[in-house]
């Protein structure tokens, strides 16, 4: 059993957030990822048992959402936005560059298990294009070179911090716990906003 009694208590508290238990499927799947790194059969069966559902029902939900992974990803999961705007602005070149640099294809994991790579869809940071996400933290205004430096820093065990995010990049499992709704105490770290977010405000204050 990969889950401690503390884990089970946490899962119980997740279920209790909702008026109806089934609503807890998604945070529970994030929680499974925080413990296992991906959604495995044991996790699906455990959730089914906790929510008195059939495993098929849980699996149907898990396979619908792209953030739930069926196989292990890296300690740092890197997503390069290749939706139109980022792609045009350089995302395609960054993605190609990283594939070559890491020697992996889309959805691949480096042999040391440190970095996995995925091309992702628009991540709501278009004014910071091209955007790279690592463990779903923002790395804004990337270039092919900066992205290579970023993954190198991950592989050397000292990842660069996100542009807009906590002071240090936490691991995939740790992030998954945050997505399960567990407060990691890092909300107050990092910028309140990057320069593009503040551009209109700045111009307005300058009286234009």
């Amino acid at each position, binding site marked *: 059993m990969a889950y401690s009694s503390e884990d089970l208590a946490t899962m119980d508290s997740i279920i209790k957030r909702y008026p109806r238990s089934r609503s807890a499927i998604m945070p529970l799947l994030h929680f499974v990822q925080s413990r296992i790194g991906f959604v495995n059969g044991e996790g699906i069966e455990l959730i089914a048992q906790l929510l008195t559902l059939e495993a098929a029902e849980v699996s149907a939900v898990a396979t619908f959402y792209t953030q739930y992974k069926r196989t292990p990803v890296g300690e740092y999961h890197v997503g390069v936005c290749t939706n139109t705007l980022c792609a045009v602005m350089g995302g395609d070149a960054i993605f190609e560059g990283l594939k070559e640099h890491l020697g992996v294809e889309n959805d691949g994991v480096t042999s040391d298990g440190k970095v996995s790579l995925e091309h992702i869809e628009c991540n709501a940071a278009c004014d910071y294009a091209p955007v790279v996400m690592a463990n779903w933290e923002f790395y804004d205004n990337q270039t092919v070179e900066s992205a290579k430096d970023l993954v190198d820093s991950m592989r050397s065990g000292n990842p660069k911090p996100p542009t807009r995010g906590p002071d240090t990049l936490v691991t995939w499992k740790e992030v998954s716990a945050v997505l399960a709704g567990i407060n990691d105490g890092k909300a107050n770290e990092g910028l309140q906003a990057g320069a593009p977010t503040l551009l209109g*405000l700045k111009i307005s204050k300058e009286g234009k």
Partner: protein
Amino acid sequence: MTKLVPVLSEHWDEKDSFTIEAYTRHGGYKASQKALAMDPDAVIQLVKDSGLRGRGGAGFPTGMKWGFIPQGDNKEHYLVVNADESEPGTCKDTPLMMANPHVLIEGCIIAAHAIRAKHAFIYIRGEVTHVVRRVNQAIEDAYKAGHLGKGIEIVLHVGAGAYICGEETALLDSLEGFRGQPRLRPPFPAIAGLYAMPTVVNNVESIASVPAIILNGAEWYQSMGTEKSKGTTLYSLSGHVKNPGQFEAPLGITLRELLELAGGIREGHRLKFWTPGGSSTPIFTDEHLDIPLDYEGVAAAGSMLGTKALQIFDETTSIIRAVLRWTEFYKHESCGKCTPCREGTWWLVQILRDLDAGIGTEEDLNKLLDICDNIAGRSFCALADGAVAPIISSLKYFRQEYLDQLANKGPLFDPMDSTLFVSAKAGA
């Protein structure tokens, strides 16, 4: 020249703007105090009078939506905030929640009071960890400060990567623990929404706009914007502009004005095409620079204000490549429920890949349009309508480029020319 009016964004430039201290320092939670002392119907009326319309894309009047909730029905009511910001080009709710999550919490308190809901849910897409942290912390702090927990509860729910969950009924299914596929309507959420109970689903920006309206009054809000599009809103400029970013302005500002504020198109280039409100809104060109960016103005010109996600592309960009990539996005995000969207996006991608490679004939363009006609308005929800919007509009404005590409039997553009790196080099 329309002036920028920062309301939502007013205090974003303070380092600690996201904390409850900063929010309270600037009068935060006074609006909810005021609203909670009002009759719920009076709150609804005030929001109706303000003219606030939904900022998630459709522009439905917010107060009217609240007014649809049956009163005295002895049922639980729910407020659900749609923070699943995923429409390509859209990037306003994310920085808003990052910089000032408390305005959203306060908006929830007011809205929940108005619709007689005890529970509110904030559904945030799963790919924005730091936003999740900020909102979670804000909820915690609001509980500690006593703003929550006294009749109104807020639960944060984090998505897991599915664009379709931005569709309100898909969002509700997802929140109930199902696959995020849209529901049949009617019944509409106001009658049978979350857990089949009366539910209001509002966009983040809509809800965040409410506290200022409560504090400053409907007339104040009414005084900004255009005849039917009131108030201020966040316009998000991205792409080939010199200075991309968020611009909060009264509704009705034009792209020409916004471009001027953003320093224009990047050096040495000119505008080719742009989206007024995300990739699902038909594209515009440099013919449309002076269209007032309000709900009516954009619609009259054949597109939609949508999320005011202004993605700007200059002349180095291949329209076919841009459209193909969006089409691939819609194929990836189609939920699979209905035939036209599921099968249609599968087919469209294959045709556009050929066209991008310069393979095909003019007849294929007509076929492409006919397939779009068989998809648009035939699918279960609006996703597929969005999927064909860039195709149809690009063929409207850039048919010749498609033909040229076919004549060329290959791409006409070097993708490197449109990257930021090239201009960085050029500028260096």
